[in-house]
């Protein structure tokens, strides 16, 4: 067995499938006002925050779970979930990395993100979310020098209430759809980033999400604000341990870009996809929305979605400021019984706004993949343009690939173009690669990576390598 095969053998089973034994503090099972008060209380939140949650909960009670999506799932009993779970050792929050529970550190090592090592080598500041509470935040000093705030959401609520109060819920209001509203009511933690005026963030900011305790829904809330003329690139990676039952993940991510600011948000999502028979896995129902509030602002979403039993998300851009730009680059890969319904929304409100959508979907095994997107050009969005390209690749005839674009053009000055193709890997390409000594699996890996190249290029270096590997691993066993 050569080294490559060995590597594949090691990775065949879910690499991140282990659970860490740490005592958890859990809120009582179920969803009611008391649980929300419990969460708010344990996090020592001010009254306005509790009111925000309760308002969302009032609204949530009126909402019905949506059912228009392609992947159907068994009904979730929202009363049968834990809405808060924190590792016990967090009670007295450690002051530095050395004080961290060694078991926690070990977990991160297994995940491949030794905080100190990786942080030092890669120059990435990591804000790791372990279950629901931020464990440690590195590189604070360097960031503070520039006036950048990068901390957990709970900390931001305590220390920067003005900023949080001003922006939280402005992109995803408490009156939004079912899962977003649920998140507004019960969110536990997440990341908060504020880049002050004119600052170019000197390093990539990163979070690693991981769901640990079983039967806990993970509800993070991320808020990124880029003030005038600033720039930030944010990375998000997700993993979860193997469990038989399905776990719900309903995060909210809000991005706000003011005049001339730019936010780049990259995700590599590798939640546990369930086993070969479709048992278990994460339900990834995430709401991500960016608001280009100021003139000449830019928001760019890049995502590599390889995990989760069901992925159901549409990272969107609201292009409100004149001359603002929205971008969406996506690779979604489904294998075995995975299902994905993903895409984006580009809502053009300001003049001269531009958006670009590149989506690559690959389905194999018994999986189902849907691209669903909306391009909406408002009548006031003069001279704006959109370009959409979505390509699908099918492997085998047990899987499905679907494209559902909605195009609404209400402005005669604007141009909208949409293209989509569906195909399979051609015999010729495979033959050519194999003739040159690649085995079928390597050949497919190569061709698929070529197919995805346009999107992979958008990823920051550190992620691109990992993502490329993930693409290969996700398609294991789908050929031949």
């Amino acid at each position, binding site marked *: 067995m050569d080294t490559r095969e060995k590597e594949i053998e090691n990775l065949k089973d879910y690499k991140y499938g282990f659970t860490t034994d740490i005592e958890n503090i859990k809120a009582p099972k179920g969803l009611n006002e008391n649980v929300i008060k419990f969460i708010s209380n344990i996090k020592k939140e001010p009254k306005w925050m509790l009111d925000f949650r309760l308002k969302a909960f009032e609204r949530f009670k009126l909402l019905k779970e949506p059912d*228009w999506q392609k992947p159907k799932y068994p009904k979730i009993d929202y009363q049968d979930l834990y809405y808060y779970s924190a590792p016990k050792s967090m009670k007295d929050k450690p002051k530095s990395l050395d004080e961290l529970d060694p078991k926690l550190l070990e977990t991160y090592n297994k995940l491949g993100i030794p905080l100190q090592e990786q942080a030092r080598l890669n120059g990435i500041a990591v804000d790791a979310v372990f279950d629901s509470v931020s464990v440690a935040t590195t590189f604070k000093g360097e960031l503070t020098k520039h006036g950048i705030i990068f901390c957990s959401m709970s900390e931001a609520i305590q220390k920067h209430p003005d900023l949080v109060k001003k922006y939280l819920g402005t992109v995803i209001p408490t009156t939004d759809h079912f899962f977003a509203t649920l998140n507004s009511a019960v969110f536990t933690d997440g990341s908060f980033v504020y880049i002050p005026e004119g600052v170019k963030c000197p390093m990539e900011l990163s979070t690693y999400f991981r769901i640990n305790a079983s039967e806990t829904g993970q509800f993070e809330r991320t808020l990124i604000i880029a003030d005038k003329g600033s720039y930030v690139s944010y990375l998000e990676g997700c993993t979860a341990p193997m469990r038989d039952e399905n776990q719900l993940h309903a995060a909210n991510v809000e991005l706000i870009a003011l005049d001339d600011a730019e936010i780049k948000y990259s995700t590599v999502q590798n939640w546990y996809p369930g086993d070969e028979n479709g048992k278990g896995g994460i339900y990834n129902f995430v709401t991500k929305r960016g608001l280009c509030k100021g003139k000449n602002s830019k928001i760019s979403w890049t995502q590599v979605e390889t995990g989760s039993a069901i992925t159901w998300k549409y990272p969107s851009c609201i292009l409100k400021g004149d001359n603002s730009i929205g971008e969406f680059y996506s690779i979604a890969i489904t294998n075995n019984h995975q299902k994905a319904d993903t895409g984006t929304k580009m809502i053009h409100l300001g003049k001269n706004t531009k958006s670009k959508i590149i989506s690559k979907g690959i389905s194999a095994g018994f999986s189902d993949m849907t691209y669903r997107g909306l391009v909406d050009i408002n*009548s006031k969005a003069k001279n704006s343009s959109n370009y959409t390209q979505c390509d*699908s690749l*099918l*492997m*085998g*005839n*047990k*899987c*499905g*690939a*679907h*494209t*559902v*674009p*909605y*195009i*609404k*053009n*209400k*402005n*005669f*000055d*604007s*141009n*909208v*173009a*949409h*293209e*989509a*193709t*569906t*195909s*399979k890997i051609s015999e010729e390409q495979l033959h050519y690669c194999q003739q040159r000594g690649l085995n079928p699996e390597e050949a497919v890996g190569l061709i698929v990576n070529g197919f995805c190249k346009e999107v992979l290029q958008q990823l920051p270096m550190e992620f691109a390598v990992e993502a490329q590997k993930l693409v290969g691993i996700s398609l294991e066993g789908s050929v031949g």
Partner: protein
Amino acid sequence: MKEQLKIDFNKIQEVSNFSNRDIEIKKSYLNKFIENGFPNRKQENWKFLDINQIISKNISDLSFYNDYSIENKIDSSIFIDDLEHNKIVFINGRIEKIDFSYEDKKQIEIIEDSYTIDKFESNNSLIDLNIALSNKHFKILIKKGYSLKKPLIIYHLTNEKMNSKNINLRLDFELEQNSSLKLIDFFSDYSEKNFMNIFYNFNLDKDAILKNYKIDKSLNKNLKYSFNNINQKQNSISETFVFSAGSDYFKNEINCNLKGGYSSAFINGIFSLDDNKQHEIRTTINHLVENTKSYQLIKSVLGKNTKSAYQGRIYVDSKAQKTDGYQLSKAILLDESSEFNAKPELEIYADDVKCSHGSASGSLDDNSIFYLMSRGLNYKQAKGLLINGFLLDVIEKITDAEIKDLLKKMIGLKK
């Protein structure tokens, strides 16, 4: 509306001579319709243009009963002279004339048949309404190996006597093996504020060819809905062309089931809209077996306060390997109040397929206008030339030379 529907339904039953079986069937469809009502924007298929809203806005008291005992005078000046053709004439929804004088009578059968009336399943409440209230039910059968010598034109005429009425029409066409039919639907209205609901059901046997051209050109204030269901066996070909311009509201729905290998479906459409008109084309192509092909091209030119929508769906079953599916929709928006909506959808379960779609919309190209004006055309001429060129592309897809010429003349692309 409910009460009105029940009263009108009973009136229709009194004057018609339906069998008890038919009445029972019709009653069940009526109840289905009463339960669901007119479709609205909450339903995915009606998202862009909400017929419920449009009907209540345009027609205040919709009545469902039509008196078919009185004969209407046929104004023969309306007939198309440039083309020799067979005719079926509907005036206000009443069949006034069936004329197949150019054809061999033994090869065509016109059957008044209600037996197959409920042999159609759908979740479409307008079809329920159609089945419940349609008055007569004809089936046109074209026998094995026979090709009609001349095209058949179905005239859908209305006169000023009709107002705030709902008309429901149903025709079935059975094309036996290796037969062919060219069918033109021609709409001309002297009435306003009516709602027409037309349902055609086509069955194409092996090697049969159907060409259907729908021409809605004369300006009128009626609302129209047309549904074509086409079932196709091996080697059969269907070609549908829609010219959608005249009515205040027109939705054309085309549903093709490619059930036999090497069958193919072509759908081409033009929206040429001005002045508050709202039109839609919705297509569903079901590729159900191996080696089938579909091609769709839809173009819109949109003037003041107009809205067009194109919803195209290509479904490829897991058995339907080697499918070739293509969709393209393009729109030119001429005014700041015009709006174009598209939803070109692919749903694919087989891997060895070639499916693609494209959609583009925008204003007239400034560079092209400049080019033409620099060569001596004024702005209006330049604009006209570009629009004609844009639309000609679709007309050229028509495979029948005679009808292509006729259409070009009608639209003003040729003298």
